[in-house]
């Protein structure tokens, strides 16, 4: 059976067009998905920054003369997304501190939220380069594992603050977890 060459060309062109349309469609939808994810990450970063500001003010507001211990707040974050939360000090670049969120394995899908304290000279010191454990008064079974980067998955992410004295308040993010767990 003879098939005219024009039919072959037309069929191939149509198939190519269908494939190209499919690719274009998936590109558009993935772009929109990335935008939505960025919005989600932005909201998470804003929420963490808000809680960080509030806990710092709460600790400073107490005006205690003696050590009041560490205060913390467990954050209610989405668990159906794999992402990182970081506390970044960019005061060297004149950008102050900010909370940075990033989708796991996707550096291009990220967001950040400023912390309205633009100086390392302030009495508030954010822990951005060390790890450790903090005890909370009245709780023996759990500790705060603080770090500048936490995984925002299913675990209890917390913001914490500790007023060392009148000249220094330490604050940061971490995980609320069982001792040794």
């Amino acid at each position, binding site marked *: 059976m003879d098939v005219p060459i*024009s*039919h072959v060309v*037309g069929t191939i*062109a*149509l198939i190519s*067009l*269908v494939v190209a*349309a499919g690719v*274009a*469609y998936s590109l*558009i*939808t993935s772009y*929109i998905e990335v*935008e*939505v994810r960025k*919005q*989600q990450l*932005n*909201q998470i970063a*804003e*929420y963490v*920054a*808000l809680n960080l*500001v*509030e806990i710092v*003010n*709460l600790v*400073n*507001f107490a*005006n205690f003369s003696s050590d009041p211990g560490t205060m913390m707040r467990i954050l209610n974050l989405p668990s159906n997304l794999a992402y990182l939360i970081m506390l970044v000090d960019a005061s060297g670049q004149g*950008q*102050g*501190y*900010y909370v940075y969120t990033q989708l796991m394995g996707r550096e291009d899908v990220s967001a950040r*939220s*400023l*912390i*309205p*304290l*633009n*100086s390392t*000279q*302030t*009495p*508030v010191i954010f822990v951005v380069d060390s790890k450790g454990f903090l005890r909370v008064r009245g709780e023996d079974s759990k500790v705060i594992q603080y770090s500048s980067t936490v995984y925002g998955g299913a675990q209890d992410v917390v913001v914490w603050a500790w007023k060392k004295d009148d000249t220094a308040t330490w604050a940061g993010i971490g995980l609320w977890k069982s001792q040794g767990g």
Partner: protein
Amino acid sequence: MHIYEYLFTAIIILSMLFASSTMITTLSEPSRNVSEREQLKITAQKLMAQILLDPGDPADWGNDLTVEGNLKTFGLAKHSETTRDAYVLDPYKVLRLNDALLQLDRSLYIPPSRLRDLLNLGNEYGLALEFSPALVVSIDKKGSDRYELTVMSEYGGLPIVGANVTARMYYYDVDSNNVVGTDLIVNETEYRGKCIVDFGSIPSEMKILIVLVEYYGMRLVRVFSAGSNLIRAHLLGDFLFVDKTCTISRDEVYEIIVSKRFGGYSIENVESSLSKIEDGRFRLTYVEPSTVATLTVSQDGGNLIFSSLEANVTYSMIAGKWSFPFAYSVERTVTIGGSLYNLRLYLWRMSW
């Protein structure tokens, strides 16, 4: 198939792609807008928490006149070594945001660009703060020194019925060469939110009216000009700022204080002294913590110089801009100098 049929099929496929892409973008747009508004809301709340609960660094920056370059953290909360109340703001810190200070001394004013740096906003966000009294109090002259006072709610302008009004007029008495106060007048607003305060007839144009309105715990102090020979000054901590062309020769200053007493309030005055630092700048020996206004007389004896701690301040990163169509606003009720104010914070994105 003819060539036209291929073309027709291709057009249909492209149309489907275009239609579905447009539909997806259009459908996701509203939720994206909601999400962006939500982010603005959280950022606004974060800034509000910082501004209202942090006293700033240095903590007494409101009356530290050298602070402009040394201000490290911005916050308007009132600082105290012992106890602190939430949402109680330092009147001097609020007054440092008043652009009227620019006419006296530029270094007293905290410019919006400085605030942007201190709050780490960069060029991403714009911000405006609006302080307005929780009750709208206005006066209408009905006789020589007879005034009709109207108290309305800030929302909707509804009349406030049964508000307790305490008023006293202060004026310069030429005979005694002193600032004197009239008797205290106490009244209550009727169903239209109005009441009369009558001081008879005071033969002076150097007089001001101090009004205190109290309504179920909401308190507001207002200072009204009642004469024509008045000059407004600005009190910041221990310092009194006045136009450089105006001089004060007498070294006494009258501090008007408001205190609670059994069954109501009292408006009293205490005498203090001041000394000249330079032209337009005077230092008071002592300022009573509950001072709501100060009075003193100009060198020629022809003007009453008054200052008040009323915080009717609007502060915006966009000069003269009064409408913020894309802004998100957060509102809190705060206490400034014993009076209740509503503080609105408007936040908008400079770029999307």
